[in-house]
């Protein structure tokens, strides 16, 4: 990863606009909300190859799940936003063997065919990716699936989908992943839940009858760090995705609020914020595995919060109140502490509210949310560090949008959206600007997208 020193904001270009113009290369009319910065939004007019899904065939006892597996794969491929997906075609129309001229006439560039057989306690799924243009098999794989009632069944199918994405594009997928988030119950308490990347399998994780905040996945996807008020004051704990408590971070800095944990990519060190009583506020790290080695990275009379590591573990981006309570900004600093520079477009004495940074798994992008229009709405923003960080892209244009978190494919973001119809989790593809609703109608917040979940 390459990080250049960021220049002053007078150099920056801020690109802002509406998703509805995502197929257009014309920037929107400048809104000129930030001093010295021109605004407008451009999405590349992305070409998406058409990918067809041949109805999956069941054989030797695999027929009971063939269409279910096909439906999961088809939806995953659509959610990847890498293809225009042609699926759910009647078997009578396309037959059971691959007919390249037919698919070519239907406009397909790729074709996915699958066959499911019963195998032991579960199934064997054979998948082929055909290049319709060249009329040949591009890739083929065999995937073991557990039985349908197994906890890992859907995740196993998602792994197949991710493999197909890799075959076709060379890029990682994100179907085999989960999203952790908080949800407010009728009693006013907040608990952590997880949901699969395709919006299925919603499960409650914590049951503390309290406030639970800031769930964050460990780098191997096996556990979550959270902040819970279960003892009356916020403290940090690790839990597995069934809510079993694995460890508790001791109050190593004395009394205070221990909040916003995040894992170092090594999976052993936690970075977090401590606010208060009788101590300086700021970001600390602690080696949970060895239960030692508290270190103080930044802070002081000001407040630093919401740390996020670069994927190589060498940098931390975070949110700070050091310029004033009402003008939180996003900054970055070396992971061991040191001088910080501002990533968000702050000018001394100017306004601007930027918060909740999340560093992309590819290392080049940092997402956060900000209040940039006069109506005081919050939108999802992304900066690219590789181009000097001078281009600020706005990914949402409606309602309020907060707390973005990157998918393991480095191109999707999940965030908490508020619309006229209510709250929900939404997913946006940074490349095409496509938006989908993951979970609607619930008072949800602080989503964190897991890494790809390895086989159980």
């Amino acid at each position, binding site marked *: 990863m390459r990080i250049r020193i960021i220049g002053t904001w007078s150099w920056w270009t801020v690109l802002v606009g509406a998703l509805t113009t995502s197929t257009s290369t014309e920037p929107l009319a400048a809104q000129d909300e930030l001093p010295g910065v021109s605004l407008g939004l451009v999405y590349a007019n992305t070409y998406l190859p058409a990918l067809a899904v041949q109805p999956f065939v069941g054989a030797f006892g695999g027929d009971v799940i063939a269409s279910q597996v096909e439906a999961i794969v088809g939806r995953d491929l659509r959610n990847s936003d890498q293809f225009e997906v042609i699926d759910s075609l009647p078997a009578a129309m396309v037959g059971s063997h691959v007919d390249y001229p037919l698919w070519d006439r239907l406009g397909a560039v790729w074709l996915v065919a699958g066959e499911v057989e019963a195998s032991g306690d579960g199934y064997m799924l054979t998948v082929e990716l055909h290049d319709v243009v060249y009329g040949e098999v591009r890739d083929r794989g065999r995937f073991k699936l557990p039985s349908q009632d197994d906890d890992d069944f859907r995740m196993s199918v998602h792994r197949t989908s991710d493999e197909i994405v890799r075959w076709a594009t060379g890029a990682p997928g994100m179907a085999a992943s989960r999203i952790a988030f908080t949800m407010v119950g009728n009693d006013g308490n907040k608990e952590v839940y997880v949901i699969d990347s395709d919006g299925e399998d919603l499960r409650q994780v914590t049951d503390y009858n309290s406030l639970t*905040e800031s769930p964050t996945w460990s780098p191997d996807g096996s556990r979550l760090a959270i902040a819970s008020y279960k003892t009356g004051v916020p403290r940090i704990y690790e839990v597995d995705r069934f809510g079993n408590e694995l460890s508790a971070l001791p109050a190593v800095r004395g009394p205070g609020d221990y909040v916003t944990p995040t894992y170092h990519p090594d999976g052993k060190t936690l970075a977090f914020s401590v*606010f*208060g*009583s009788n101590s300086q506020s700021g970001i600390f790290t602690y080696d949970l595995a060895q239960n030692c080695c508290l270190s103080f990275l930044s802070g002081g009379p000001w*407040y630093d919060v919401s740390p996020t590591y670069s994927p190589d573990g060498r940098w931390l981006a975070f949110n700070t109140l050091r310029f004033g309570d009402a003008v939180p900004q996003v900054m970055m600093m070396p992971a061991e502490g040191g001088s910080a520079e501002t990533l968000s477009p702050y000018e001394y004495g100017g306004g601007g509210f930027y*918060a909740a940074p999340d560093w992309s798994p590819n290392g080049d992008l940092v997402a956060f949310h900000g209040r940039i229009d006069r109506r005081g709405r919050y939108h999802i923003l992304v900066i690219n560090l590789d181009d000097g960080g001078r281009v600020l892209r706005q990914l949402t244009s409606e309602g309020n949008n907060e707390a973005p978190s990157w998918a393991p494919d480095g191109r999707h973001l999940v965030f908490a959206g508020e619309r006229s119809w209510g709250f929900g989790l939404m997913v946006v593809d940074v490349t095409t600007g496509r938006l989908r609703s993951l979970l609607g109608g619930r008072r949800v917040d602080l989503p964190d997208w897991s890494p790809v979940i390895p086989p159980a």
Partner: protein
Amino acid sequence: MIVRRFFITVFAATLLVGACGGDPPPPPPPPQADQDSLQRYNDSVAAAEAERRAEAERLAAERAAEAERQRAVRAARAALEEMVFFDYDMSDIRDDAEATLRAKVDILRASPQVQVRIEGHADERGSTEYNMALGNRRAEAIRQFLVGFGLGENRFEIVSFGEGRPLQQGSTESDWARNRRGQFVITAGADAINPAN
């Protein structure tokens, strides 16, 4: 026996009349009896009555004083627990909050055993994690204000609930204004609250 009851009745009637302050009815003709013993008797009855009245008055005054003290303690407790409110995205103590906090200072000085948890809260706008920081900034600003008047720092603990515990549901400006607040919970010495001197 009859005579005695008669005299008590007369005495009581006299008292009653005196208390009423109206025109006294003509006194009944004094019965013919041993004047000395009657006088002594009357004196002793009056003395006992005066003593009883004094005692009752003392008790009533004591009860009134106690009730007054309890009213003052309740008022002091309410003053200690009275919330203060903040401007949007700010942790500065507002003028109206300053008066509320000054009242707390005087009570806390008079009640050295009392300890308080200061809870900082934010409205739902902005960022949930930023609001945790902001809530703590608010609680800390209150604590520093109180400590600035010479109160011991160890008498206060602070905690931020961010936007997690709104006072009012809803998303109007007046809901938000009520939710941007500092709250006060007495954690020790609740039975040792003294009103300000």
